[in-house]
């Protein structure tokens, strides 16, 4: 932090109880400092709610409105139980990626906590939502709340028309496929026509270069007949199961397709959040820490305020070691906060090691580097790009290789000169959704035969699917309406059928799931 300036301002009062006037006063100061740091945010809407309402918001995946489903009731009961018994505090805040950005403050919070939450959510998360490329590309904050209201009304209408049970079964099936209902790689951004044409030409040229003249001697007819037989649908494997079902399931009613679409859209909306946990939480934590410290340096905050704030802050960024009973993996708040702090250190006071590892950013303007990093990365690439040897040493990171063919585990790399790059690579891969979650694709539809759908799991490092994939398959069959098969393609090239779920919607119309 910059050296404390002479305290010249009268501190804001810091009573335990908050008032609306105080929230406004604190917000004004936080806002001023945030602007000085150049944080760009959506307009802010702060909403005061009770703990009960917080639990409501919690259980409908943090959204202000959502359609009705028993699974939200389940998570409400879970949250309520944990909260009532004091096993779990509610999160201090929920922030919604919308425009204006809605931040919930709980009425039980002290004034200090409200200020912390405003700095964390309304400035930290908010600026991240506005800046980061994933959120910019994938989400539409202007429309999300309206879309959710539309979704709820639409589903209510469906329930009235087709019965609650019918809709519930459909939603169950869609929810089971939420993970595989997103476009991971396909960007929604439109390509320009010239680019499209260039690509088309490149593809043709590539195909041309693959033609081996020797085969020209083969009779032309034979190969044509073969081509007809093996024409497949879909022509290329599809990664987005919900999209594929929405567009191609033979017997879905139009309203059912719309419901599939709603679930898919909402799932897609949360996709960026799952990929930017470390960055996003670290960013918000960094900014609440920096903003409040700046205010303290200006003399606006009392010592007691700071003590309470630091107490909460240290709790949030606590990282237990691997052998402690409360170890739950790497704390994204801790890692993210440490990395952002470290980037600033590299910019402002680089060591020889930093100059060697980060020649681009060592000694650069930290605000610009921050802005660049915040806008253009996700967890996977952020770690790969910015995790410095110092942070690895501070966290004492080490990698364990668990191969089920070996009797023992192996320490594959640690935080030393030989291991830095390897550790960083593995950690980056740990955050890669593509390797964290199984890779499933729509492989084939027997268009001319029994209309059965074949899904293929491309096994990665021999990792199998978990046991409940059979249950999921029943849900796929429910949506598809005909037989569904699940194959696994192993890395040695062998393919075998894991499960098959026989079904013919035309004959057994009663839902089986």
């Amino acid at each position, binding site marked *: 932090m910059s050296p404390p300036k002479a305290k010249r301002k009268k501190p804001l009062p810091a009573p335990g109880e908050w008032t609306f006037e105080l929230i406004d006063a604190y917000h004004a100061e936080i806002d001023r400092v945030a602007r000085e740091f150049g944080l760009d945010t959506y307009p802010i809407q702060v909403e005061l709610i009770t703990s009960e309402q917080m639990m409501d918001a919690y259980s409908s995946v943090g959204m202000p409105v959502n359609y009705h489903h028993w699974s939200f009731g389940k998570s409400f*009961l879970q949250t309520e139980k944990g909260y009532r018994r004091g096993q779990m505090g509610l999160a201090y805040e929920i922030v919604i990626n919308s425009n204006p950005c809605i931040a919930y403050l709980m009425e039980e919070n002290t004034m200090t906590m409200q200020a912390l939450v405003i700095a964390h959510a309304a400035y930290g998360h908010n600026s991240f939502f506005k800046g980061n490329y994933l959120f910019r590309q994938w989400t539409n904050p202007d429309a999300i709340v309206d879309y959710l209201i539309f979704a709820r009304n639409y589903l209510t209408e469906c329930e009235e028309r087709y019965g609650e049970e019918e809709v519930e079964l459909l939603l169950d099936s869609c929810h089971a496929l939420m993970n595989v209902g997103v476009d991971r790689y396909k960007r929604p951004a439109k390509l320009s026509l010239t680019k499209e044409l260039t690509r088309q030409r490149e593809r043709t040229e590539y195909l041309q270069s693959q033609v081996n003249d020797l085969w020209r001697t083969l009779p032309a007819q034979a190969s044509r007949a073969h081509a007809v037989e093996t024409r497949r649908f879909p022509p290329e494997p599809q990664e987005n199961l919900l999209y594929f079902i929405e567009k191609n399931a033979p017997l879905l009613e139009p309203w059912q397709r719309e419901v599939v679409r709603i679930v898919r859209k909402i799932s897609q909306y949360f996709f960026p959040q799952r990929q930017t946990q470390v960055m996003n939480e670290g960013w918000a934590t960094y900014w609440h820490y920096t903003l409040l410290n700046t205010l303290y340096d200006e003399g606006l905050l009392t010592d007691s305020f700071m003590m309470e704030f630091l107490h909460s802050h240290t709790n949030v960024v606590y990282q237990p070691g691997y052998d402690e009973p409360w170890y739950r993996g790497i704390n994204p708040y801790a890692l993210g906060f440490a990395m952002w702090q470290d980037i600033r250190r590299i910019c402002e006071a680089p060591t020889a090691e930093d100059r060697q590892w980060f020649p681009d950013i060592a000694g650069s303007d930290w605000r610009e580097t921050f802005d660049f990093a915040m806008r253009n990365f996700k967890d996977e690439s952020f770690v790969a790009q910015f995790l410095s040897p110092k942070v690895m040493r501070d966290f004492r990171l080490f990698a364990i290789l668990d191969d089920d063919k070996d009797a023992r585990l192996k320490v594959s790399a640690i935080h030393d000169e030989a291991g830095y790059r390897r550790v960083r690579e593995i950690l980056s891969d740990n955050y890669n959704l593509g390797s964290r979650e199984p890779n499933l694709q729509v492989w084939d539809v027997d268009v001319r035969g029994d209309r059965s759908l074949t899904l293929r799991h491309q096994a990665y490092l021999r990792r199998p699917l978990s046991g409940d994939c059979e249950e999921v398959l029943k849900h796929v069959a429910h949506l598809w309406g005909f037989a569904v098969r699940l194959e696994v393609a192993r890395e040695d090239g062998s393919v075998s059928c894991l499960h098959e779920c026989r079904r013919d919607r035309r004959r057994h119309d009663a839902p089986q799931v």
Partner: protein
Amino acid sequence: MVRIIDRRFDSRNKSAVNRQRFMRRFKGQIRKAVADAIDGRSIKDLDNGEDVSIPSRDLSEPQFHHGRGGVWETIFTGNDQFSSGDQINRPQGGAGGGSGKGKASKDGEGEDDFVFNLSREEFLDVFFDDLALPDLVKTQLARIHEYKSQRAGFSNDGTPANINVVRSLRGALGRRLALGAPFHGKLRELQRALDERLETHPDDDPEVQRLRGEIAILRAKLEAIPFIDTFDLRYNNRIKVPKPTTQAVMFCIMDVSGSMDEGKKATAKRFFMLLYLFLTRTYEHIELVFIRHHTVAKEVNEEDFFHSRESGGTVVSSALDLMKDILHARYANGAWNIYGAQASDGDNWENDSPHCRELLAERVLPFVQYFAYIEITPGEPQNLWREYEKLGTAHRNFAMQHIEGLPDIYPVFRELFKKKLV
């Protein structure tokens, strides 16, 4: 830039619908949990909510995940002893080990039951789900001939006796204000102009005269607005709604003779408490008649019925006689649905049992909707059971069940009051 909104008074319980959906979906499991829960807890507690637990695998939401196995390489924090290339034994149970991400927590929580709290209402809903007093609906529908008058807001016409003064005057005041408003404004303006004019001009100035004239006209107009008009009048509106007669009377007959030991009495009491809870909950207007008997029968209040002790020989017919008498004295006017439940160990004075059967068949069963008999005895049925068995075939409104001990109560109760398809 910032908007601060106080949402604390917005609707709570946004999740109530989701909660209901959850309850409906897992009705089967919840019912089982409730049945388990009431074993071994006293009936008094039954009136409270209850923590129920459901095996979490029953309510899992399946997704495609990775399972255990294959190759995982994971980063951990806090290295205190390892160097590159070290070999470690696979830890048991997953905690702190390297057996793939999320395993530890999955193993830790995955097998736990899902526990949540049912409110009292929800608990009783589940508890008495699908139970009904047999035939009550039928008789009730047959005779709706009572109406009650009930307030239903206000109307524009009615009898003078029903005028609502406050509403009428409020309407009149509003009308007067609305009609008078333009005149009042004009009046104030004129008055001001007049006052100004008077300061500089004499009293007989023509302008002053003109203003005075206009003011007088306006005043007259204002006075012409009636204080109250016919269309200001509001009348209390009353409508007649049919009043369903769900009044019922339940006779609870319990044997408190010497052969009924404490255990059997406790079982009987539990049975009646359950019944009582069921009835008071289901029907608003229900009367209960408690009859206890040994050699003589006595009508007692609820407190005495459940809590005081007596002993002696057994003459069951005394209770049936008393029931018959009370029935004819108080409930014979046809406005009552009549139910009877009798608990006994079946040990009766030998010559009395046939008499009981006759009494029941001829003097009681023709008047009641339903009569249930439970015999609480660990072994063979006693003589009363054998006599009553002869009734079963001839009378549709008679049912009997055998209870051996406490755990049978709930199933037997369900059996007796199971909803029957009409």
